[in-house]
C-alpha cells in the first residue's frame, strides 16, 4: 500500500505562494483552536491539582503537596501561582536538598517580576532557612516595598515583623532595633499590633521602647490586663521600679490569678522600701536602709559560704573570693557608726558598694537570690547602669 497525492498545485510561483500562505493561515487557525482547547483542559486539570496541593500544604503534608503542585505544573507549566506554591512547599518541607529547587523556582519568578512582594517574601524565607543574613534582609526589604495584591499595609507590616524576628534570631540586634523603630512608626492603632511590637522590643532588650508600646496599648484599652502586666514587667526590667510597682499593682488587681505579676510586685516593693538611694527619703531613713542592707549582706555572705563549704574563719583571700568579701565587709563595718557625720558624705556610697559587691559575687557563686537579697542585687544593677 502506498500513499500518493495528485499534484494539485499549479505551476505559477505567485499562485503557489498564495496557496501556501492560505494553507499556512488555515493550519495556524486550526492549531490555534487545538492549542486553546488543550490549554483550557490542562488549566482546568491544573486548578484541581493546585487546590489539592493547597489542602495538603495547609495540613503540613508537604510531600503530597509537592507532588500535587508538580502535577499542576505539568498541566500549566508557566503558572506563577503554582510555581510560587511549589517553591513554598519545597522550602517548608524541611528537606535541605529541596531548598535549591525552591530557590530556583522562586528566582525564575523573581526574574519575571522582581517587584512581586509575595515572591520576594518567599525568597526571603528561603534565605532565612539558609541563615543568609544579607540575602534575607534584601528580599524582606523587597517584600516590604514591593507590590502586594491585597492588603498591602498589613502584609508589609507582617514582612517587617518576620524580618525582625529573623534578625533577632541571628543576633543582629542593631539591625533589628532599626527595623523595630520603623515598625513602631507604622503600626496600626490596634492593641494587638502594639502588643506584638512590645514583644519584639522585649526580645531586642529595648525595655523602654517595650514599655512605650504597652503604654500605647493601655491608652487604647486601659483595662488590658496583658498590657498592664507587660508594662509592669518592662518597667521592672528597665529599672523603673516606681512605674513597675504601679503597673504591676494594677495588673495584680485586674487579674488576681497573675502570680508572675504578684511575685514581681513583691520584689519591686522590697526594692522601693530598701533602696537607700531613692529620692525623697530622709537621712535617717537612708541610714536605716544602709544599715539593714549591710546586715543583710553579711547574712547572705555567710549562707553562701556555708552552701559552698567555705569556712570564713579560716579561709584567706588567696583561697576564696568569699573570704575577700568577708574582709571587705569587716573593714567597712566600723564606717556604719560614722554615717550620721556631716563630713563623711562618701560613706553611704562606700558602704553600699561593699553590699552590692557581696550581692553580685554571691549571686554568681551561689545562684540567684530571693527576697531582700534580690532587691539589693537589682538595686546594684540599676546603680551600675546609671553610673555607666
Amino acid at each position, binding site marked *: 500500500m502506498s500513499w500518493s497525492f495528485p499534484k494539485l498545485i499549479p505551476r505559477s*510561483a505567485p499562485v503557489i*505562494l498564495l496557496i501556501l500562505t492560505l494553507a499556512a493561515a488555515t493550519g*495556524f487557525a486550526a492549531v490555534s483552536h487545538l492549542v486553546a482547547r488543550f490549554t483550557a483542559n490542562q488549566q482546568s486539570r491544573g486548578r484541581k491539582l493546585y487546590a489539592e496541593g493547597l489542602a495538603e500544604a495547609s495540613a503540613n503534608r508537604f510531600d503530597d503537596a509537592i507532588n500535587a503542585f508538580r502535577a499542576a505544573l505539568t498541566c500549566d507549566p508557566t503558572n506563577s501561582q503554582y510555581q510560587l506554591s511549589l517553591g513554598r512547599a519545597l522550602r517548608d518541607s524541611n528537606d535541605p536538598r529541596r531548598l535549591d*529547587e525552591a530557590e530556583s523556582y522562586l528566582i*525564575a519568578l523573581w526574574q519575571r517580576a522582581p517587584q512581586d512582594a509575595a515572591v520576594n517574601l518567599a525568597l526571603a524565607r528561603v534565605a532565612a532557612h539558609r541563615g543568609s543574613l544579607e540575602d534575607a534582609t534584601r528580599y524582606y526589604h523587597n517584600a516590604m516595598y514591593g507590590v502586594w495584591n491585597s492588603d498591602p499595609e498589613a502584609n508589609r507590616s507582617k514582612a517587617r515583623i518576620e524580618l525582625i524576628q529573623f534578625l533577632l534570631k541571628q543576633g543582629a540586634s542593631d539591625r533589628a532595633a532599626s527595623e523595630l523603630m520603623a515598625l513602631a512608626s507604622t503600626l496600626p492603632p490596634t492593641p494587638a499590633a502594639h502588643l506584638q511590637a512590645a514583644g519584639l522590643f522585649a526580645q531586642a532588650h529595648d525595655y523602654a521602647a517595650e514599655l512605650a508600646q504597652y503604654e500605647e496599648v493601655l491608652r487604647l484599652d486601659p483595662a488590658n490586663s496583658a498590657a498592664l502586666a507587660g508594662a509592669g514587667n518592662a518597667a521592672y526590667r528597665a529599672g523603673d521600679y516606681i512605674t513597675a510597682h504601679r503597673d504591676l499593682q494594677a495588673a495584680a488587681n485586674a487579674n488576681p490569678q497573675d502570680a508572675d505579676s504578684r511575685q514581681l510586685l513583691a520584689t519591686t516593693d522590697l526594692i522601693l522600701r530598701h533602696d537607700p538611694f531613692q529620692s525623697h527619703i530622709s537621712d535617717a531613713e537612708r541610714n536605716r536602709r544602709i544599715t539593714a542592707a549591710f546586715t543583710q549582706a553579711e547574712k547572705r555572705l555567710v549562707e553562701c559560704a556555708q552552701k559552698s563549704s567555705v569556712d570564713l574563719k579560716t579561709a584567706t583571700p588567696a583561697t576564696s573570693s568569699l573570704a575577700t568579701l568577708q574582709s571587705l565587709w569587716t573593714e567597712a563595718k566600723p564606717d556604719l557608726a560614722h554615717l550620721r557625720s556631716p563630713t563623711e558624705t562618701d560613706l553611704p556610697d562606700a558602704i553600699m558598694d561593699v553590699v552590692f559587691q557581696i550581692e553580685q559575687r554571691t549571686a554568681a557563686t551561689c545562684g540567684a537570690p530571693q527576697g531582700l537579697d534580690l532587691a539589693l542585687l537589682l538595686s546594684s544593677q540599676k546603680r551600675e547602669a546609671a553610673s555607666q
Partner: protein
Amino acid sequence: MSNSSTNHPAPAPVAPLQVPSRLFSTLEGVFNEELFFLILSVFIGIFSGLAVVCFRLAIDWTHLALLGPLPQTHSWRLFAVPALAGLVVAALVIHVFPGIRGSGVNQTKAALYIFNGFIPFRTAVGKFICAAIAIGSGQSLGPEDPSLQIGAGIASALGRQLDISREKLRLMAPVGAAAGLAAAFNAPISAVLFVIEEVIGRWSAGILGSVVLSAVSSVVIVRWFLGSQPLFRIPVTTFKRPTELIAYAVLGIFGGLASVAFAKSIAYLRPRLNSLPSWTQYFQPALAGLLIGLIAFLGAPQVMGAGYDSMDQAMHGQYVWKMLALLAVLKILATTLSFVSGTPGGMFAPTLFIGAMLGGAVGDLERHFFPHLTGSTGTYVLVGMGVLFAGFLRAPMTSVFMVLEVSGNYEIVVPVIVANTFSYVISRSLQTVPIFDMLTRQDGLILPSLEEDREETILRVEDAMLPAPTIILNAEDYVDANARRVQDSTDSNFLVRMHPSGWNIISRDQLQRLFREGKGEHTLASVLPQPLPSLYPDLPLDSALRYVNDYPLVPVVNRANSRKLEGVVSRDSVFKKYGSRRTEEAPNAADRVDP
C-alpha cells in the same frame, strides 16, 4: 515487518528537470529557483512547526490520558500502559506504517543520498501517531527524532507537489529536518548545526540559508503556541577556577565510557532481536514497555518517556549521586530496550537524560572528595548533557552549541568544550563507527559517514611534490644559450621561468629542433606558447589531476612569490601518491564495517 530503518517504498518518480522554466514562466526574473527555494524554506518551517506543536500536544495528551499528570511508583498502570501501548504500536508499524522503524536522522540521510529527497508522507504520519503513543505511554524515547522526520516528510511531500528540480528536491528533506528538530528542541542554532554536521555534511551558502530560515520559522511557530521558556529551568552555573577543568575532564571520560556502553548495547541487541522470527515483532515493543514499566514500578518512574522533568529536577539538586548514577544506568537499559524493539522514537532526549544524570553523579562525587570545587550540581548536569551528545551521537559542534543554547550561559563554554572533547575522543577510540552509521550498516545501507569524511586526511599537492629541478631555464635567454645549458643534463623536460612572472616548459627535443631551425638567436619567450599553469603546495592533490595529463611537469610555486619554485608534480608522482594512500587505508577498511 521490515527492519530496515530506511525502508522506503520504491523511490517516487522524480520531478522532471525542465520544470523550473515552466514553473517560473509567469514571473521570469523575479522568482528564480534560488529565491523561490528560500521562500519555500520559510513555509517548510511554518508547516513543520505546526506539525511539531500538534505532535507535542499529542504526546502530552496521551501521557495524561494513559498515565496521569505525575506517575507514581507502585501503580499497576506503570507497566500495563506501556506494554499494551507497545502492542498497539507494533500492530500499527507492521500493518499500517512499515517504513517508520528506526532513526529519522538516517531516513533523512537516505532520502538525501539515495532516494532523491523522497520520504513517503505516510512515514511522517506514521511517525507522528506511533511515536506519540509510544512516548506518551512511557517508552524511554524522545520526541526530537520523530519531529525531525515529520519535518523532513512534510518538506519532501511539499517538494514533490511543486515539481522543483532534482537538486533542490534532494535538499528539501534536510531543510525540513532542521525545522522539525529546531521546533522540538526550541533551539534553532543547534538544529541547524546538527543537520549540517550529521545529515548534509557540508557547508554551502545556498543550503545554509534555507536551513536557517526553516529552523527559525519553525521555532517562531512553536514559541508562538507553546511559549518561549527553555526545556529546563536553568540553575546558576559558575566556572571560576581553571583547575576545575580537571573535574570536567573526568566527567568527559565517564561520559565517553557511558556513550560506548550505550552504543555497544544497541549494536549488540538490535541485530539479534531483528533476527528473531517475525511474529515476535508483535511483542517486542510490548515486552520493552513491560520491562520499562517494571523499572518504574520498582521505584524509578523517571526513566519513562523523554524525562525532561527529571532532568530539570536533577539540575536543581533533587537527587543524591547514587540515585543519579542509578538513573543513568537504568535509562541506558530502558532506552536500549525501547529502541532495539523497533518502537518509533528518538534517542536525543534519552541521551540528554543519561548525560544529565551522569554529570550530576560525577559532579556530586567529585565535590564530595574535593569540596573546594565551585561548580554546582546544575553545572555538572548541563555539561553532562553535552558530554553524552558528543560521545554517543558524535556531533561535537552541536553538542557544545546545544548546551550553550539550552542554558543561555556562555560562562560554561570552556568546561563544555573540555568535557565534550574527552568524551568524543574516548568514544571514537573505543567505538569506531558512530551510532547513526552503525544503524544504517546494520540495515544494509551504506550512506556516507560524515564523521569519516570530516576526519579524512586530504592529500595535498605538497604530498606528491618532487624536488625542484636543478636546471631552470630563463625565458629572456637565447635558444642557443639554453641549448648549451641542457646538453649535459639527462632530463628530458625543463622548466622555463618567464618574465616578469609565470612558468613554461620545454623539452630537450623542442630545444634542439629550434636550434636546428636556426632560431638560436631568438629568446625562449618569443618561441614558447601560452604559459604553463602552476599549483600551490597547499592545494588538494585533486587539483593537480587537471594538468598532469597535459604537461609532463607542473610547477609548484610559493604563494607569496610566484617566481619561487617549491617543487614540481608529474603524473607519476601524483598517481604514486594516490596508490600509496590506498595501501595505507586498506587495513583500516575492515574496522569501518565491523557492526
